């Protein structure tokens, strides 16, 4: 086994995902402590420039036309082969749509332990320690793998990005695993529907979560948004339930918003949601649970019932303007 830290570089539509350099930064620190190197693995086709933009010690660029687009089966085959050959101490993947497709399967095929939702990763006397953020961000679990090596999936924003580094040494190789006979075929990318409203362009958002209770209460938020001249956005449970269209969803699987003011009503603040709104200039959160994680990122908070607050605020706005 080596003391190298492998990271899976993530890219989509020709752009490197931010988390890649976040993981690269952490991988360099960890590799430094263990006496190894941070090695990024980038799977792609015609992606040399992307490979050169990663701030790891080295980049392994696996170039194959079958890797032009993300394909979970092709990626899984290549990664299993790379891990078997290189025997890294830690493999870091993003806790993203890509990383979540791969990590747990890779744990089975490589026999390595997997620690997921990781927001802290270190070495103590040469032993890997990883902290998972679970139960919707309410609990942290510090875990150690049974053996020396492990896989981790990392949360976006957990690590400081490795920025402005000189391009690392890029080693371009052919796929170490055969990529024919795949049972998963990539067909096409589908851009998000336009139309409706663009929540990323609003200076103010009235955002609602599970605390809104039911479809019949959406109107209360709509009335407030109308009075304020803006629109209603939501956390995932609201759009999954079909109470608002998907185009209104803020968060990891939705949109990232950076309004001047974000009013979070009945949103508990799961990590996936925080990822999409923590860049707002000012955050006001109202949630009946005083321990809700949303209050950790909010600037102002209150614990009253939003079903009382929404009409009260609408009335106040109407009387003020």
């Amino acid at each position, binding site marked *: 086994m080596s003391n190298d830290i492998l990271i899976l570089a993530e890219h989509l539509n020709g752009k490197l995902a931010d988390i890649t350099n976040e993981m690269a930064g952490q991988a360099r620190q960890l590799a430094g402590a263990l006496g190894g190197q941070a090695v990024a693995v980038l799977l792609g086709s015609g992606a040399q420039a992307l490979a050169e933009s990663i701030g790891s010690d080295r980049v392994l660029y696996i170039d194959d036309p079958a890797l032009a687009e*993300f*394909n*979970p*089966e092709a990626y899984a085959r290549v990664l299993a082969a790379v891990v078997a050959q290189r025997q890294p101490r830690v493999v870091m993947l993003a806790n993203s*749509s*890509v990383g*979540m497709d791969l*990590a*747990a*399967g890779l*744990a*089975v095929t490589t026999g390595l332990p*997997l*620690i997921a*939702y990781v927001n802290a990763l270190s070495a103590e006397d040469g032993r890997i320690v990883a902290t998972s953020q*679970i*139960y919707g*961000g309410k*609990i*942290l*679990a*510090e*875990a*150690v793998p049974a*053996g020396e090596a492990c896989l981790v999936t990392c949360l976006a924003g957990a690590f400081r990005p490795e920025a402005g580094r000189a391009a690392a040494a890029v080693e371009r190789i052919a796929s170490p695993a055969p990529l024919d006979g795949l*049972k*998963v*075929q*990539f*067909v096409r*990318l*589908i851009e998000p*529907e336009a139309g409706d409203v663009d929540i990323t362009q609003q200076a*103010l958002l009235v955002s609602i979560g599970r605390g809104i209770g039911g479809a019949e209460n959406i109107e209360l938020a709509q009335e407030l948004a109308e009075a*304020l001249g803006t629109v209603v956005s939501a956390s995932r449970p609201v*759009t*999954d339930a*079909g109470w608002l269209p*998907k185009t209104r*969803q803020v968060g990891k*699987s*939705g949109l*990232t918003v950076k309004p*001047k*003011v974000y*009013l979070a009503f009945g949103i508990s603040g799961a990590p996936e949601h925080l990822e999409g709104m923590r860049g707002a200039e000012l955050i006001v*959160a109202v949630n009946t*649970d005083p*321990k809700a994680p949303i*209050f*950790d990122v909010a600037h*102002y908070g209150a614990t*009253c019932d939003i079903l*009382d*607050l929404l009409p*009260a*605020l609408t009335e*106040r*706005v109407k009387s003020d*303007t």
Partner: protein
Amino acid sequence: MILAVAIKQVPNLTDDLEISADGTGLDYDALTYVLNEFDEQALEEAVLVKEAAGGSVTVVGIDTTGELDGALHTALAKGADRAMKVTGDFDRDLGSEGQAQLLAEAIRPLAADLLLTGVQAADDRDGQIGPRLAALLGWPYVGVVTHVTPEPGCVRVHKEYAGGLLAEFVVTLPAVIGVQASHQPPRYAPVSKIRQIAKTAQIESVAGQGTPASSSSVRRMFKPEAAGQAEMWAGEPEEVAGKIATLLTAKGLLKL
């Protein structure tokens, strides 16, 4: 099409989660459990696929709580045809690693064409069940899926990336799909119907073989220190409304 849905119960996150006395887990006795919300979506998608392509839906879970029957009855009320539970002397915190091993054993004899499960769960400390199941069964996996369309010998799926971007894949069966959201909101099952089913339904029991060990162990579980960033406003909704209005005015977002 023979469909299977793997489900699990997770602690109800609206409860206060307390850490166990030894500091390495939750105080499981104090918890109430709910069906993993993503499994609810997976069940709905399975029933939608069955309605489109014909076939049957079998729901299967590990009974780590002794209370899985309720979730299985609800699944039957929502359109599942068979319900199975794997029983045994399991730890309450049996992780994805152990659950996937037990589920794979239970699912293999079903000769399913398509296995759907929730893309993730709030307690997936050791990763998601779906990709583990796929690797154990030797089937392909695509996760974060929001639409499954059955076609002869395969399914066409939409996988979600950040920002609402989707990728379309065609996946040869048998396969495992991790569902993020069903393409129609999950249907509602009236309590009366669930009660009716609870009286008559047969839940098939499968004895789990042993308790699989986890390849990582929690040495400390704790609550995050509240960053305590938010300045909290006390008071009635009207007072809070007044404070929000003042802020919006200061930010130039509310013209008086």
